[in-house]
């Protein structure tokens, strides 16, 4: 295990310690214990900035299946790792001031946050697709916990569930893609797959795999039409929104598209889908952001739209991988823009989320209809908001301006493509991009001016507004200064971070990355000027044309579709379930046993598996006959026992006799275990005795008795048949000899049973005790919930 692996799992390790630290040091905000880790990781990853070649470290995990925990650092993963840990540090620092240590359950919050951080690091650093998938689902799951952190609010639960359903659905589809890729290439390792790809691009499974991967990426990155979960996820505490929805989780989809580009981009469909969905999302997000009244909802739609923008740039950039004969540098520029905007988006959106958090924290509301005129109370926050929004709107001299210009340049180059009707339909790309930018400008202005200027309405606010404490301001100040620094000196990033990342997305790219602040009177510049002009016009006349949004039929939204299908699925499954689950364990046993009989009997019949071989049978002694008779007598007497107590004791005696069999066959381990198990289960039975219902009238009915008779005879016959056949069908040599030979050699133990349990088949034991624990927890919660929470739920 290398330091790199340790870096990935260190958040998980710290997560184990957090609850202990929280309980031990109640008077210290738990965030302070968490903060050093992301800072440490950030500086650790910074040390990789000067690497020339990707670094790969591997730890065997399931080598037999080709699954190894391979950590790979190249330009792309390094960029993401820096974002995750860098923004992570700032978010943790911010959360220390945002979440009160007296009111919030900080232990769970930081556990979830650390789980998430580790999962994200795992996603971007693993080279093995299965490991990547594991961490990918881990991000879905930890973000579910984070979004639902205030679980007492119904909206939080709804948002958490929605994001979980949609992103996990995408994740499963991605798993399908991974498996298809494996079928085609025989490898789970991305680096290996990339080398094989030219040979498989004509495979019939190639397109399905591509689609599966795209669904995974689109759901995670909230692309149209999967974007609906992101606004609802805003119910999470603001530090979470800043972290998940600006810097990291939603960018996992971007990461996946970038990472898989060398694999799929040669296919034209990839180009169209990524660029097409991206540009639609860009427009739809920005268009809808304008009508929102909640500050965080504006930011949510803005994130959707900006993610669409990065996605479309990656799509256009894929053209460079598709063709050989074209001017590659032009399309490499689109990828440059994508990577650059990725960094810029993390900086300005992160700071804006924190600013919104401050406004929410200090005024008690995020509704722009109630806010206004906060400029005088919060001058620093106002300045930060100006920097963030102007960068988002693409105004100079901030970094957003640069990436937006590059975005326009990339979109204009679409027209040069003369394939897949890009030369005709492609015209839509720059047009939609420009329109979307106008709306981006518009909502940016709404965000800052409706909040900080205009009429101050103190009567609508819950608190008297004042400037945030300095600790809360540090993080957004750092991010805002990065916005300016990257804007004025973009080239400090270009060779160290952007170029390596591009090399990872487009292997063999040699184009020089140089971002210049002033690039002459180009079409892009005029497009920006147009955006500003129309944007200002629309902002001023906003009240007049706002009604446009009401024209959109409310019944046709995707949210209604989501809610409707969820309700539909619930009612259908409820109907189906209630038709066979009647609450009586007897009925369930009938199902289970009939299934058991039918499946096994038909298998034996189809496979012609029944065989009886008497040649190899050892002689039956006096004691065996005696014990068998005892068992038979005891089991038959159960049938005639009138009272329950007698049946329980008789059943126990069957068990004890079986353990005597083990003694007879010299299996002391089994005998001992069976004896103790029998004792405890009889005790348990006696405990349950009190709860058992009175003998019902059902038992008297012939039909009931006949069913039971049939089933019991069936089960008995099947088990006998299987036992006989199992003895007679010897398809393999017994494994016993292996254990006899190796128990002492390999595990230094003399008790074979125990060595098998803890050593040779330790996995079994580990999972068995896990299952046992889950069962115990299940029983505990069922009974305790019935006692405590049940009444509460019934009242609802």
């Amino acid at each position, binding site marked *: 295990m290398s330091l790199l692996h340790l870096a990935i799992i260190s958040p998980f390790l710290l997560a184990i310690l957090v609850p202990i630290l929280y309980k031990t040091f109640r008077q210290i905000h738990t965030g302070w214990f968490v903060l050093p880790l992301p800072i440490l990781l950030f500086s650790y990853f910074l040390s990789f900035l000067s690497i020339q070649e990707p670094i790969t470290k591997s730890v065997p995990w399931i080598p037999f299946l080709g699954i190894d925990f391979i950590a790979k650092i190249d330009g792309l993963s390094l960029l993401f790792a820096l974002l995750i840990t860098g923004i992570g540090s700032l978010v943790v620092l911010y959360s220390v001031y945002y979440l009160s240590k007296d009111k919030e359950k900080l232990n769970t919050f930081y556990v979830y946050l650390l789980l998430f951080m580790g999962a994200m690091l795992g996603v971007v650093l693993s080279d093995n697709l299965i490991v990547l998938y594991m961490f990918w689902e881990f991000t879905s799951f930890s973000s579910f916990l984070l979004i639902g952190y205030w679980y007492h609010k119904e909206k939080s639960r709804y948002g958490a569930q929605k994001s979980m359903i949609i992103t996990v659905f995408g994740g499963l589809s991605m798993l399908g893609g991974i498996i298809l890729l494996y079928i085609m290439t025989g490898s789970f390792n991305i680096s290996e797959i990339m080398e094989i790809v030219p040979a498989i691009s004509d495979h019939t499974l190639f397109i399905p795999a591509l689609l599966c991967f795209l669904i995974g990426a689109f759901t995670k990155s909230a692309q149209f039409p999967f974007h609906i979960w992101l606004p609802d996820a805003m119910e999470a505490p603001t530090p979470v929104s800043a972290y998940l929805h600006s810097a990291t989780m939603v960018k996992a989809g971007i990461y996946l598209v970038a990472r898989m580009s060398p694999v799929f981009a040669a296919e034209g469909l990839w180009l169209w889908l990524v660029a097409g969905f991206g540009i639609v999302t860009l427009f739809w997000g920005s268009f809808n952001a304008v009508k929102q009244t909640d500050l965080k909802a504006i930011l949510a739609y803005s994130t959707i739209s900006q993610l669409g923008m990065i996605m479309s740039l990656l799509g256009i950039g894929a053209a460079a991988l598709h063709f050989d004969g074209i001017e590659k540098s032009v399309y490499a520029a689109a990828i440059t823009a994508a990577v650059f905007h990725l960094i810029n988006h993390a900086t300005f959106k992160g700071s804006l989320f924190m600013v919104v958090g401050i406004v929410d924290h200090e005024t008690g509301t995020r509704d722009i209809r109630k806010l206004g005129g906060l400029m005088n109370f919060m001058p620093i926050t106002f300045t930060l908001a100006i920097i963030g929004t102007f960068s988002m709107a693409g105004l100079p001299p901030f970094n957003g301006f640069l990436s937006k210009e590059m975005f326009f340049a990339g979109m204009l180059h679409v027209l040069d493509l003369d394939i897949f009707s890009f030369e005709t339909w492609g015209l839509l790309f720059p047009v939609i991009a420009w329109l979307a930018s106008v709306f981006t400008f518009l909502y940016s202005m709404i965000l800052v001016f409706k909040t900080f200027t205009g009429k101050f309405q103190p009567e609508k606010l819950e608190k008297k507004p004042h400037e945030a404490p300095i600790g809360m301001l540090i993080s957004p100040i750092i991010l805002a200064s990065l916005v300016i620094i990257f804007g004025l000196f973009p080239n400090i990033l270009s060779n160290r971070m952007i170029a390596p990342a591009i090399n990872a997305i487009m292997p063999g790219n040699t184009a020089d990355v140089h971002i210049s602040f002033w690039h002459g009177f180009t079409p892009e510049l005029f497009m920006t000027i147009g955006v500003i002009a129309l944007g200002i016009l629309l902002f001023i006349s906003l009240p007049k044309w706002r009604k446009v949004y009401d024209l959109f039929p409310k019944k046709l939204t995707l949210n209604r579709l989501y809610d409707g299908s969820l309700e539909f699925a619930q009612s259908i499954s409820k109907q189906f379930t209630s038709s066979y689950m009647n609450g009586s364990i007897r009925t369930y046993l009938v199902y289970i046993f009939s299934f058991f009989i039918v499946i096994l009997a038909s298998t034996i019949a189809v496979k012609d598996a029944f065989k009886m071989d008497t040649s190899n049978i050892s002689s039956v002694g006096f004691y065996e006959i005696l014990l068998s008779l005892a068992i038979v007598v005891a089991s038959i007497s159960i049938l005639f026992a009138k009272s329950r107590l007698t049946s329980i004791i008789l059943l126990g005696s069957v068990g004890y006799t079986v353990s005597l069999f083990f003694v007879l066959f010299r299996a002391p381990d089994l005998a001992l*275990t069976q004896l103790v198990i029998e004792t405890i289960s009889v005790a348990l039975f006696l405990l*349950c005795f009190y709860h058992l219902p009175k003998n019902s009238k059902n038992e008297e009915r012939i039909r009931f008795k006949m069913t039971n008779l049939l089933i019991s005879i069936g089960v008995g016959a099947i088990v006998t048949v299987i036992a006989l056949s199992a003895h007679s069908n010897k398809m393999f040599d017994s494994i016993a000899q292996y254990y006899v030979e190796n128990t002492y050699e390999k595990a230094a133990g003399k008790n074979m049973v125990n060595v098998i349990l803890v050593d040779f088949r330790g996995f079994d034991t580990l999972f068995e005790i896990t299952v046992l624990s889950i069962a115990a927890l299940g029983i505990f919660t069922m009974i305790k919930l019935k006692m405590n929470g049940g009444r509460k739920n019934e009242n609802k």
Partner: protein
Amino acid sequence: MKTNDIILQTTTKVVLFIIILFSIFIFFRGHYTPGGGFVGGLLTSGAIVLLLLAFDMKTVAEILPINYIYMTATGLLFAGGTAAGALFFNVPFLTHAFGDVYLPILGETSLHTATIFDLGVFLVVVGVTMTIIQTIGGDE
């Protein structure tokens, strides 16, 4: 509720310790002779069940103020931790290590990481059995 269980109670007081000592003995010798974490754990829970039969739930909770769910969790942590610990030494998951060590009083002793794993099993078995019995028995 019970009135004349004086014999059971008195016997339990003595037998309990014998069973528990025996279960610990069985647990430690498991690697070489019959026994191990599973049986040991069951025996211990058997002892506690006996205690429950002789006295009532409340008294037992006072004598043994153990949260069995935490016990289960600790057990899982031991077992999982031993299994995962192997990864830190660059060997596959669940590889056990053993060796002979000279200890001051015991002399030459062979130590196994398998024992820690087994301890996890022990704790889980006791924890699970007692959780189940306690919740079902405590349910009014």
